[in-house]
């Protein structure tokens, strides 16, 4: 059973690609790209266990490699708070996914 086949399915079914998953003492991390031809966001998703609050999800957007044109389009697609690191409870993960999917699906006219 090939890992890449399963990842291919998820890219074409849900518009999400997990490039790599790894664990460190903080928790479990997934290097992820989400989106479609209208817009793509690269981010890290971390799953940090904590006894009292259950699992916390940490979202870290990766923007350094993005061109200014790409950032201009992303700024018209996704709300400013999603350009910063966020953390939220595991149960909110599906809302995070669909919010990101809706935003990145928006057609954006290139201004200039």
């Amino acid at each position: 059973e090939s890992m890449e086949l399963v990842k291919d399915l998820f890219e074409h079914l849900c518009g999400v690609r997990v490039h790599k998953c790894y664990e460190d003492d903080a928790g479990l991390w997934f290097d992820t790209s989400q989106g479609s031809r209208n817009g793509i966001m690269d981010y890290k998703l971390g799953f940090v266990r904590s006894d009292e609050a259950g699992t916390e999800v940490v979202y870290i957007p990766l923007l350094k490699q993005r061109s200014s044109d790409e950032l201009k389009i992303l700024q018209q697609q996704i709300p400013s708070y999603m350009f910063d690191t966020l953390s939220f409870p595991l149960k909110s993960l599906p809302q995070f996914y669909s919010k990101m999917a809706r935003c990145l699906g928006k057609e954006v006219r290139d201004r200039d």
Partner: protein
Amino acid sequence: DGLSSPYFGDSPLKRRAPSFGYKPRETVFSPT
């Protein structure tokens, strides 16, 4: 370039692996 699959064709998100610092992986078909 080994990155597109005979079933799915090209996978644009797969090509973003270098943003995280590594090469995109080829889809290897395991013998069924």
